[in-house]
């Protein structure tokens, strides 16, 4: 038995969210599985610059998603590691794979008229080169690297820059990321933050950050991205 509620308006009162016009993706751990390659490049760079001994990969892993020089600063490692790390990342790029279901997702989103961008911790040239090698570059209107904005994630700059380039309002976009830094960046830009769980190394932290949406498979995003009505 419930309390009778009368006089409820017959029309939606702000519950119906407007459809999304754009999706901003993080790259590593969301679109591409570059985990093994980053680990190998990190180990080689560490051996070259720091020397013998085990590379602190576990700690590095927790900072994935940030701009590489920022990670070096946080971990107290020499910035000189960037050069061999980037070199090895390019060399090993062929070993990077696309997660199952991602190509189908990107295709369907484009068919539905959504505009797509990448906002990554990588540098812009490296991200574009990687996506080009995987034949994914044409899906995205913009691929923005951390070297192309004043402040990398978790600052909102990269998400705001993507919105500006596409001329899309924050409340009409959604950002998909696998790390708490992605969520923070989206939040700072007032963009809904979706947590991609299919490869995240930080699932507990990610969920604790309170994403606006949890995606267990790339296709889960489609329910939130109906076709954009033709104008």
């Amino acid at each position, binding site marked *: *038995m419930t*309390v009778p509620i*009368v006089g409820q*308006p017959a029309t939606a009162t702000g519950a119906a969210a407007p459809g999304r016009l754009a999706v901003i993706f993080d790259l590593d751990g969301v679109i591409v599985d570059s985990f093994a390659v980053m680990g190998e490049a990190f180990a080689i760079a560490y051996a070259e610059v720091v020397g013998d001994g085990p590379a602190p990969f576990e700690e590095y892993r927790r900072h994935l998603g940030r701009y590489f020089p920022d990670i070096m600063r946080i971990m107290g490692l020499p910035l000189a590691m960037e050069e061999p790390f980037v070199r090895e990342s390019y060399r090993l790029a062929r070993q990077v794979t696309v997660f199952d279901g991602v190509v189908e997702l990107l295709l369907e989103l484009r068919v539905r008229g959504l505009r797509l961008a990448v906002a990554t911790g990588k540098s812009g040239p490296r991200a574009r080169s990687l996506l080009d090698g995987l034949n994914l570059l044409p899906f995205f209107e913009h691929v923005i690297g951390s070297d192309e904005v004043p402040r990398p994630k978790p600052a909102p700059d990269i998400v705001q820059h993507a919105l500006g380039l596409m001329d899309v309002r924050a409340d009409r976009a959604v950002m998909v990321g696998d790390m708490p830094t992605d969520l923070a960046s989206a939040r700072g830009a007032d963009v809904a933050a979706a947590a991609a769980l299919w490869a995240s190394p930080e699932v507990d932290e990610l969920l604790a950050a309170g994403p606006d949406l949890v995606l267990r498979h790339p296709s889960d995003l489609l329910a939130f991205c109906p076709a954009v009505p033709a104008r």
Partner: protein
Amino acid sequence: MRSPDQAHYLGVDIGGTKVALRVETDTGCVDESAFAWEPRRSATLDLAQLTTHVDGLRARLGTPLRAVGVAMPATVGPAGRVTAWPSRPEWTGLELEASLRALFPEAPVAWADDGDLGALAEAEESGCDDVLYLGVGTGVGGGLFLGGALCPGLGRGSFEIGHLIVELDGVRCVCGRRGCLQAVASGPATLRRAALLRGAAVTFDDLRAAVRGGQLWAVAAVEQTCRAVAAAVAGVHELLHPRLALIGGGFATGIPGFTGLVSAHLADLARPGHPPPPVAPAALGGLSSLRGAVSLARRIAS
């Protein structure tokens, strides 16, 4: 003032946890009461508790009952025997018809499904003779009032819209099938979906606050529920053409914009040349089955 010669119509809404009773004369309600079932024992003891309460009611009224209508959530077979009631399994096998006649020897008594009676009451309240009523709460119930009468009609089974299949490969229903409206769109089903989309537990209060705030996981969970409800309304409309769809139930009435979302999804499902019926909030809230039980008493008395 109570007139001793005024006819008393009694409605009884038997629920899984409590029972509500309402007495009306031709001029209005003269008595309303409710009691919770004692801790679960047996149908016989439940009936004894009901008898005690009814005796007290008779003493208060002072005159015999003119007719009695009973709203029952249980499935009752053609022989008047309870065949299933998940909320109070002890009642399975109970001779409902004989028990009610023993309880009310002085008056004609009839029972009907609580969803059907909710539809009856809501239809009378709306003034429309062709009304589909849907109650979204712990389960999904409802009824269809067509041409001024309940469909399919007393003794012919109830209008089980909660078990209309809306997703062929949908989630499992308590009945064992997949994709029943109730399995997709009940309050608990919506909260479960919201928890999956949020990645954390979700209470009803969480959900309504998050819907109000436009949070993606909450809006998405409710949207899917409203889409399923709209699909059910569209299906019923294709076959039987109700002129009005009313949405009630504790869950639906508590979620801001629920009726409007159903209406929007129904519009999406419309075929060219076949406009969907208007969707409006039900008026009687949790009292619909009880009011319908009184209406049933009036109908069998005349």
